[in-house]
């Protein structure tokens, strides 16, 4: 068993990862920011808490000392693109510097929470796998994607000459009772949900946390990369219906993906005609590149996670839905059986 440092440990995913690692018998050290509350998901888990920010070298040294695995989840998901970059990528740079100092000398593995947002969704066709092309021009994407592309790039470069091995997990949309909103469902307009008809790459937070626990212990070469998507195929319509009570959005209109993408392309063309110098600046949902990154209906196999890392999701869609969305609409529109692969 390992001593595992989890950065971003009090976040939505982090809280579940801490609990999963403890269940698997690891000693867990949690780097949490000042003022963070002890997450309910930790239960009565024995957690070695280090208070500090991953952007502080002093806090990084305190957190790393004596750990042999790092699960790096810390990322900023709100704020401007610059703020997200400075926090997510800057924090990763500080962590890498710490790993080169004596405090990080014992670390043998680093598991990164990357994201589906690092892929080039405009180029992806049919099936999205770990070898699908990555976003070559991150500046055309939102601040989160830009930061995640660079975070992963930095860690891959560092891993080539590091004494630790790198495992990169790229989860799809992580959801759970605490975070029922999934951006890939569609766009809210007042009290109305415009649902873009698509297939969602969902992973329930507890299933996703199990993937991180598997990655900590898996005997795989450095650089191993695995998408994390639950096996059950769930459409945006099914998810919107199931989560209606939790999200409070009961009025829905389903829009075919192709029609919505066509609208975005018309909007972009209009922008180029009206503002020939700049092309205009449209909301994300009307930007075809960002639209595809959010909604493109692909198949999302998770074979690497299951076969190489030994990941076994602990909840089926039915079980996860029942526990997260116990309500009158939760029983409607059951998911289709079968595998996303």
């Amino acid at each position, binding site marked *: 068993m390992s001593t595992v440092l989890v950065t971003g440990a009090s976040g939505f995913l982090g809280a579940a990862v801490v609990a999963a690692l403890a269940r698997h018998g690891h000693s867990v050290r949690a780097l949490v*920011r*000042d*003022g963070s509350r002890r997450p309910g998901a930790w239960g009565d888990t024995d957690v070695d808490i280090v208070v500090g*920010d991953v*952007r*502080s070298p002093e806090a990084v040294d305190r957190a790393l000392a004596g750990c042999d695995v790092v699960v790096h989840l810390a990322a900023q998901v709100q704020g401007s*693109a*610059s*703020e997200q*970059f*400075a*926090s997510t*990528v*800057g924090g990763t*740079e500080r962590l890498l510097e710490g790993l080169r100092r004596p405090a990080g000398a014992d670390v043998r593995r680093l598991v990164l929470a990357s994201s589906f947002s690092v892929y080039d969704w405009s180029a992806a066709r049919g099936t999205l796998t770990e070898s699908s092309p990555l976003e070559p*021009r*991150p*500046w055309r994407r939102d601040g989160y994607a*830009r930061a995640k592309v*660079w975070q992963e*790039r*930095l860690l891959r470069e560092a891993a080539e000459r590091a004494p630790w091995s790198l495992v990169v997990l790229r989860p799809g949309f992580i959801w759970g009772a605490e975070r029922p909103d999934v951006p890939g469902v569609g766009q809210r307009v007042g009290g109305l949900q415009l649902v873009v008809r698509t297939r969602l790459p969902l992973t329930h937070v507890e299933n996703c946390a199990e993937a991180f626990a598997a990655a900590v212990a898996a005997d795989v070469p450095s650089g191993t990369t695995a998408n994390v998507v639950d096996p059950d195929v769930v459409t945006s319509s099914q998810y919107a219906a199931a989560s209606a009570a939790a999200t409070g959005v009961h009025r829905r209109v389903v829009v075919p993906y192709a029609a919505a993408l066509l609208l975005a392309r018309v909007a972009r063309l209009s*922008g180029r005609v009206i*503002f020939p*110098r*700049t*092309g*205009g*600046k*449209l909301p994300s949902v009307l930007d075809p590149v960002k639209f595809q990154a959010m909604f493109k209906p692909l198949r999302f196999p998770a074979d690497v996670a299951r076969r190489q890392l030994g990941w076994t999701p602990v909840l089926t869609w039915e079980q996860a839905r029942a526990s997260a969305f116990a309500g009158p609409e939760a029983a409607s529109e059951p998911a289709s059986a079968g595998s996303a692969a």
Partner: protein
Amino acid sequence: MEAGPRGLDHPVAATGAEGVAPSPVALRRQPRVAVIGAGGIGSEHLRALAAGVGGHLVAVCDSSEAAARAAADEAADRGPRPEVFRDAVGMLEAADLDVVHVTTPPASHVPLAREALRRGIHVLVEKPLAASPEELEELLELARANGAHLLEDYNYLFNSQVRTLLAWRDEGRLGDVVHVDVTVALDVLTGGGPLVQGTAPHFALGLPAGLVSDFLPHLASLAHAFTGPATGVATAWAKRHPSRLAVDEMRCLVTGSSATASLAFSASAQPDVFSVVVEGTRMRARADLYGTGVVRSELRGAPGPLVPLLNGLDSGRREAVGAVGGLLRKISGGPGAYEGLWGLAGAFHAALRDGTPPPVSLRDVAEVNALVTEIERSAPR
């Protein structure tokens, strides 16, 4: 003008700045530009350069190598790839620069500007430029001694609405300017963040008046453009939000050499606003810098009872046009709220190319900073 209102008995310290601009030498080409600090406001400087407002971006420097590389990658999508540096001094030595934009957090402004000015490289530095009058004077002296320009980013002076107000002033349409009011209200403390939660260092915590100091150069430069150098200042401070800041409210009255001014910053008053109101002997004009357009009331030579009606109709039309303009500005993909930065950078680079005086003089920088320093002197710590 007469002595200022009672209570404004704090004279603004003389800075010793003679305001002699360095001899302009025309480059006769677009300047070679570097940006130090690729994140935050630096990304707006990079966007302006990518849009072709002036010089050619030849180097990007950031203590985060990833930030510098990301900026260089994006620049290379539109033009030649700039060189990437982590060490600013190394870049100043190696990159054959005409001008640097210093867009790092404030604590590094003076050392970076010093290194550039010593080498005769012109500098556009983000506000606030310097933490003390002594540091400012050192930089001004370095600029004079090395024939280099030193500009602090007073970008709102180059906002089109402020240009309109200044043009009306210069054309005499305002009459004599009596007073200018500059008000910023921004809901920046609601919803947490490092200034409230203390989760990470924030540069504003190291400034003399905290967050207010970050905005003061904008307020002071706008007032200064209409009032001339300040001769007296009185300031009230308050704290309303629970945060790590000592103050988050400021109201200041300024006696200027040609008019009075009031400056206000609020982190609580809503909705958000950034307004400049100029009162002249013939016209009162109001610019909302977060929108577009200028609304005005003026003496029209019409019968007295009709003046309010005519002004009301004119204001309504201008408000509507301004609202549409504001929407178009948001979706145009242009500079948006950074219109003034694009204008200032473009004017500065054109001045370097043509050998004409820069759009902000050393005297402007000295006088604006003297006012800022005097206001900050009374800030609770």
